[in-house]
C-alpha cells in the first residue's frame, strides 16, 4: 500500500510540474496544453466513437504484435544463445537488419503486405523482436554454469532442460526485454498509423482530430491514453514477474 501511495505522489508531482510549466508560460498553451485540460479531454475520449474504434484496433494489433514477438524472439534467442556457431554465422545478418528504421521500410512492407493492419503489425514485430532476442541471448550467457552442470549430470532431456532449467534461469532478464518490447511495439504501431493513415488506429485518430486541427490537447489526451495503456501492460507483466519469478534477485520495478 505504501508503494501505491508513493507512486501516486510521484504521479501527482509530475502532473503539477506539467501544469506549472504551462501556467508560468515556459511553453505556449496551444503547443503544450496544461495537464488539467488534457485530463478533461482524456475523459472525453471515451465518449468518442472514432477513438474507441481506433483504440480497439491499436490495442488488438498490439496484443498480436507482442505475442508474435515473444513467439519469435524467445525460441530464437535460446537457440542463438546456446548454439555458438549458429550465432556467429547469423550475427552479420542480424546486425545489418537490426538498425533498419521501421519508418523507412513502410512503403516496402506496404508493397508486400498491403496497407491494412498486417503492415503495422509486421513493422511493430520487426522493431520489437530485438529487445527480447538480445536480452534472451545475454541471459543465456549469464546462466550459472553450476546450474547447467547439475542439469546435465542428471541427464535432463533437452526439452525438459529447456523448460525447467533454461527458461526459469533466463526468465527475469527476458521479461525485461518483453517489457521493453511492449512499449516499442506500441510506439511503432501508433507511429505507423500516424504516418500512413492507412489503417484505423489511435495514430490515425490523433492525426485527424489533433494534428490537422491544431488541437494539441487532443493529441496529448490520446498520448495519455497510450502512456496509460503502456503503464497498465507493464504493470501486468511486472506482476507476472513478481508472482512467478519472485525467487530471482533481479526483476524490475520499472
Amino acid at each position, binding site marked *: 500500500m505504501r508503494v501505491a501511495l508513493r507512486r501516486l505522489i510521484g504521479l501527482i508531482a509530475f502532473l503539477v510540474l506539467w501544469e506549472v510549466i504551462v501556467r508560468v508560460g515556459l511553453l*505556449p498553451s*496551444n*503547443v503544450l496544453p496544461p495537464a488539467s485540460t488534457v485530463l478533461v479531454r482524456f475523459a472525453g475520449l471515451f465518449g468518442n466513437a472514432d477513438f474507441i*474504434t*481506433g483504440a*480497439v*484496433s491499436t490495442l*488488438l*494489433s498490439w496484443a*498480436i504484435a507482442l505475442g508474435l514477438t515473444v513467439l519469435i524472439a524467445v525460441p530464437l534467442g535460446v537457440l542463438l544463445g546456446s548454439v555458438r556457431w549458429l550465432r556467429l554465422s547469423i550475427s552479420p545478418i542480424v546486425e545489418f537488419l537490426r538498425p533498419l528504421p521501421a519508418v523507412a521500410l*513502410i*512503403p*516496402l512492407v*506496404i*508493397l*508486400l503486405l*498491403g*496497407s*491494412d*493492419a498486417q503492415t503495422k503489425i509486421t513493422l511493430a514485430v520487426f522493431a520489437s523482436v530485438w529487445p527480447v532476442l538480445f536480452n534472451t541471448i545475454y541471459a543465456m550467457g549469464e546462466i550459472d554454469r553450476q546450474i547447467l552442470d547439475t542439469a546435465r549430470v542428471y541427464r535432463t532431456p533437452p526439452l525438459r532442460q529447456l523448460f525447467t532449467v533454461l527458461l526459469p534461469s533466463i526468465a527475469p532478464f527476458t521479461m525485461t526485454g518483453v517489457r521493453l518490447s511492449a512499449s516499442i511495439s506500441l510506439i511503432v504501431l501508433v507511429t505507423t498509423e500516424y*504516418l*500512413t*493513415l*492507412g*489503417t*484505423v488506429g489511435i495514430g490515425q485518430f490523433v*492525426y*485527424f*482530430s*489533433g*494534428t*490537422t*486541427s*491544431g488541437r*494539441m490537447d487532443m493529441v496529448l489526451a490520446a498520448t495519455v491514453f497510450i502512456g496509460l495503456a503502456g503503464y497498465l501492460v507493464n504493470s501486468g507483466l511486472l506482476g507476472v514477474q513478481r508472482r512467478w519469478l519472485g525467487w530471482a534477485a533481479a526483476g524490475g520495478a520499472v
Partner: protein
Amino acid sequence: GCSALNGSSSGDNSSDSSSGGLEKTKLNVGILTGQQGVSTKLAEKYGYFKDQGLEVTSKMFASGPAAYPELLNGNMDFIITNYISFFQAIAQKTVQAKIVVDVDQLNENGLVVIAKQGSGIKEAKDLVGKKVSIHQSASVADVLLRATLKDHDVDPNSVHYQQIKFPDIPAAIQAGTIDAGVELEPYITQAEKQGAEPVLKIVTGSTANITAAGYIALDSFIEKNPKTVAAFQRAMVPAQKAAADRTKLLEVLPDLTGVDKDTASLLNIDTFPTSVSASQLQRVITVMQNYGGLTAQLDANQYIVPTPQV
C-alpha cells in the same frame, strides 16, 4: 478479414458482379486528406459511382508517395497523387501509369506563404536569409515557392528551407522556430486565428491556377479495363462539380481534415476541374524542370487518359 483490426469500414472486395459490361465493378481507390479527397467522398455519398455501375471503396493515405506501393501491388485501382510525385515516379520509371481524372487545381489563396503578424515579411525579397518551411523537399510547396521567388528576381537559394509538416507550421511560426512557411488550407485559416497572416502568394503569375493532384491508374489496368476507367471518369465529373459547391463540400470536409464546421466554412476553396488537360499538366512539368530537379523531357499527352464526353 478482421474488422476490429481494420475498423469496421473496410468492405469486402472479393466477388465480381458483372453489370453494364464493365470489366470490373468493385474498385478500391486511394485518396488524400483535405480538399483533394472531397469529390470522391461526395461521389460515394451521392451515388455518382453507383450511377455508373461501380462500387467504390476509398482509403485514405497520408501522402501521394505512400499510396504508390498499394497501386503497384494491385490493392488499389486508382490513387490520387500530387503531380510532382507522379512525374518524379514516371521519370524514375517506378510506375507506368496515366492520369485519369484531374482532381484539384490550386487557387491563389489555397497555398500561400504565411508569417507572424508584424513580422516585417511582406514580399518575396523579405524572405532572403529567413527560415521558411516548405513541408517537404521537392514538394508542391517547395517547387512553387522557388518559382515565385524567381519570378520576383530573388535567388531561390538565398532562403533557408525547413521541412516542417503543414499541420505543425502554425505553432512553429508562433514559437519563432521558423520565420515563415508555405501553408495550405485548412491550416491557413487556423494559423490566422493564432496570429499569423498570409504574406506572399505563390500560386500566381507563372504558376497561377496550376493543377496539383489527380487520379492515376496503372497502364496495365487501363488497357485491361477501358470501360471501367471510362465509367470511373464519368462518375467523377458530377463529383468534381459537387465539390465546387461549398455547402456540399462542407458536408464531407470535416471527416477528411478533422477541422470543425466553423473553421471549414471560412476556408479558401480550390478549383475542381472536370476534365484532364494536357496543357495544364505540361505547365507542371515545366515548373518541375525549372525548379524541381526534373531532368527528363516528358510530354504530358502521353500520360493522360482523356475524359470521355458525358
